[in-house]
């Protein structure tokens, strides 16, 4: 019997293997350690494994391999999005020091790593089969993780996520089936032929596919699940979902938009997505105004930020993809930074740091922490000297350059609204009449502080040394 795949194929997925094996290793330690592995051990193994994976992924930069008959395409695109996924995973792991029971910690960490495997697979997936495999791997672990916290809203979140995400998967799968019917191939590249532009199956299939993607990206009108799920999910899981799920889904969307559409049909087919992205900027930012929970607020913020990222892709220009990637990185660091602040403020399952109430008077009690939070909030709003500012101007330039002025205009309106929501938290932290007396006894675990500091440095550094990778295309070999 001969194996259908050569060692080249297996070498291409080496990072995935390492990441998955790390998850197994964490579980194995938990099994042999009596009574169960301490959280520190599991976390260290997971962090080391993730960093090793990141190194392996980075080594693939500059190579171009289409493994598994074109199902898994390694290239600069997959490397860069893979690194964002791993960045998000590291950021989420750093917040796992508290909350949940110690007994469950190893299992949680293993599930998180496997979920990251799915996201990593998506960054390189180039056929509808691998895309579906990646999405299910990413989501299945998250269904469990969402329900881990010991509160009612967690169970609600898990169920809601399960039902809605499965519905989205079904729609996506239906779209994929139709696309297969149209082209007779699961490969995305096979769709980019002129004949497809007149094939009704292709149009229907693409439509369903994009609806599924919009669901996963929580774009309006498919956004309602996101804030609810983030609110219920444990803090690190919410951080993971806001960054990793978004990065992976944007990777698929970008690949589909850039590589799988016939030249004539692309702009018309994608127009609804740009419209939806524009509406998301407004709805997400307006939705933030009434929130009292940081996770919900960041959930709505994420809806709007995805809108910004998609605005950079509008017109599917080469430069636009670079800016979308840049803003994705920026969004990842500032978002993880804000979550890290919340983690420092939380003592455990209660997650006090997610209640906006607990930010009252923070400026007087914990000046450094309040300054960091202010910084991340201003970054999310797009004020200088943060990379959020530079990211916004690059997106504006991309949207204006490709003729989508109305998207640029919506971005400006959305940003102006968002400042109010972010500044409301700043106001609560610094306004003298919001001062709460009493000493702060909480001592932070070191990991969230490290994550916070790194995010802070990255947010400033990216302004002055913008990371704009040039070799993202081609996406499909």
């Amino acid at each position, binding site marked *: 019997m001969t194996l259908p795949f050569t060692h080249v194929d297996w070498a291409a997925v080496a990072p995935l293997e390492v990441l998955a094996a790390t998850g197994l290793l964490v579980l194995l330690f938990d099994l042999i350690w009596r009574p169960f592995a301490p959280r520190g051990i599991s976390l260290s193994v997971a962090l080391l494994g993730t960093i090793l994976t990141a190194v392996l992924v980075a080594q693939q930069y500059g190579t171009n391999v289409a493994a598994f008959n074109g199902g898994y395409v390694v290239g600069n695109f997959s490397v860069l999005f893979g690194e964002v996924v791993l960045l998000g995973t590291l950021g989420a792991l750093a917040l796992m020091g508290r909350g949940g029971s110690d007994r469950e910690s190893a299992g949680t960490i293993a599930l998180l790593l496997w979920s990251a495997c799915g996201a990593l697979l998506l960054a390189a997936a180039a056929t509808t089969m691998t895309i579906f495999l990646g999405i299910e791997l990413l989501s299945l672990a998250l269904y469990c993780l969402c329900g881990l916290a010991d509160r009612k809203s967690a169970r609600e979140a898990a169920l809601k996520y399960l039902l809605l995400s499965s519905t989205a998967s079904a729609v996506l799968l239906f779209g994929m089936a139709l696309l297969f019917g149209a082209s007779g191939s699961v490969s995305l590249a096979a769709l980019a032929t002129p004949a497809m532009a007149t094939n009704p199956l292709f149009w229907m299939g693409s439509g369903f596919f994009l609806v599924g993607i919009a669901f996963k990206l929580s774009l309006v009108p498919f956004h309602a699940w996101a804030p609810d799920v983030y609110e219920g999910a444990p803090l690190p899981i919410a951080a993971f979902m806001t960054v990793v799920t978004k990065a992976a889904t944007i990777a698929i969307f970008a690949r589909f938009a850039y590589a799988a559409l016939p030249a004539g049909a692309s702009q018309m087919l994608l127009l609804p997505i740009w419209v939806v992205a524009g509406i998301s900027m407004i709805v997400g930012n307006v939705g933030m105004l009434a929130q009292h929970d940081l996770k919900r607020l960041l959930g709505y913020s994420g809806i709007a930020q995805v809108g910004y990222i998609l605005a950079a892709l509008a017109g599917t220009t080469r*430069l636009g993809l*670079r*800016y979308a990637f840049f803003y994705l990185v920026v969004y990842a660091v500032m978002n993880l930074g804000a979550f890290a602040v919340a983690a420092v403020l939380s003592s455990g399952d209660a997650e006090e740091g997610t209640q906006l109430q607990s930010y009252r008077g923070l*400026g007087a009690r914990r*000046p*450094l922490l309040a*300054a960091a939070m202010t910084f991340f909030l*201003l970054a999310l*709003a797009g*004020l*200088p*000297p943060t990379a959020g*500012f530079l990211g*916004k*101007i*690059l997106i*504006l*330039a*991309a949207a*204006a*350059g490709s003729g989508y002025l109305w998207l*640029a205009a919506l971005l*400006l309106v959305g*940003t*102006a609204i968002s*400042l*109010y929501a972010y*500044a409301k938290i*700043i*106001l609560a932290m*610094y*306004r*003298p009449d919001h001062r709460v007396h009493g000493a702060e006894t909480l001592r932070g675990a070191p990991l969230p502080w490290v994550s916070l500091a790194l995010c802070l440095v990255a947010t400033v550094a990216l302004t*002055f040394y*913008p990371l*704009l990778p040039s070799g993202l295309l081609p996406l499909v070999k």
Partner: protein
Amino acid sequence: MLLALVLLPIVAGSVMLLLRGEDRRLYRGIGVVVALATLVLAFAARSEDWSAPWLRAPFVANFHLGIGALAFWLIVLLALCTACAVLAVDSARPRALVGQLLLLEGTMLGLFISRDLLLFALFYDLMLVPVFFVLLERGEHPRDAWRYIIYNFAGGLLLLFATAAFGVLHGTTDVIGSAGNAISGTWAPWIFWGFAIAFLVKTPAFPLHTWMPNTYASLPPPVAAVVGAVQSKAGLYGFFVIAMTLMPQEIARYSTALIVLGTISLLYGAVAALVQSDAKRVVAYSSLSHLGLIVIAIATQQPLALAGAALYIVAHGLFTAALFIGLGYVEEREETRSLARLRGIGASNPRLAGALTIAGLAMLGLPGLAGFVGELVIITGIVQSGNIAVAIVAVISVVLASAYVLRLFQGIVNGPVAHDLPVRRDLTWREGIAIAPLLLALLYLGVNPHAVLASGSVAIPRAPQSSSAGVTMP
């Protein structure tokens, strides 16, 4: 050295915000030293040019710093105002206030020495943050902070969009202070109005001014002095170095609209100043009126009017800062700013009354002080450009200015001593030194305006004459 000029106050201010303790003398001392050091650095780095690459796509942008002719005077004004404002700080919690003042100075210095539009936009947004925090922590009401930040951030976003569009269209944003970068075409009007609206919000001009009276009234006097004197000039400076040089056709085409807005600001500000009961609001509305005059001068594109505008920008900064600091002293002593309650300061505090009088006379345009020269040259320029009706309105506003300034001083300085208000001692040495340099500068520029006048006209390239400018005076 240019880089040090920007970074010195920003670093000093940030460090100060992170420190602990509230030693008033120490922080005031450091603040004054830093502000004076920036003044020295500005003179030393006057002819320097520094650049480092930033972006290569979608347009070229550099960290390009350099000091233009008008920018130089604004920097001198800024450093002077900051030094005086820091010296005038008399809060129980001075550390954060001095720190924010230095941050404000650093960000505005960055704005004035930016030679790149993107860098300009960065500092334009950045300079909002220190003021926002001062309003949050020390403002009279949170809504003042809201109004300030939302209005100005919205303006900043338009600026950002105009910058991005300009960059995409022109290929580079490294254009401030260098010739040959004018743009034209179908996009130019949009870009022009993006910049213009942002600048009109910042200046402010009618109808985008509604954030301004609240902000000025709510800010602590030293910060109000710097914001009212210098931050309001960021928009006008933008008109000079961006709108006029990069979009000369557009500014000529829309000059009527700008003149109308400027004229409404001029009259509306003067009339509103006449009926305010809060002393700080009188100064705030007078600022609307005076800056409206500068907007008109810019819109006419008449070289004489522009030279006058450059001088009046500096003069207005000097007397506004002096007045806010002086009114701050009054408020500290009498614990009210209400014109209905204040009277008779002159009897108990003659030095304070004298300082206020000099600043006020400069504001109403008394010959011999800087305000007069600026107004005279601007109005002459407006007449030369053929807008006789506008010139007449401007003269009327000067009369109104006399009315509201004298009303302010009748109210505060003259009259019998108010027995229901506390009587405190006159200006101390420190307080006197904090206001004296501004008054001396007003006097100096009043008798020797050529220093600034000349630099203003040199910095201004000739724009294509609009067809309406037909009349020339002998």
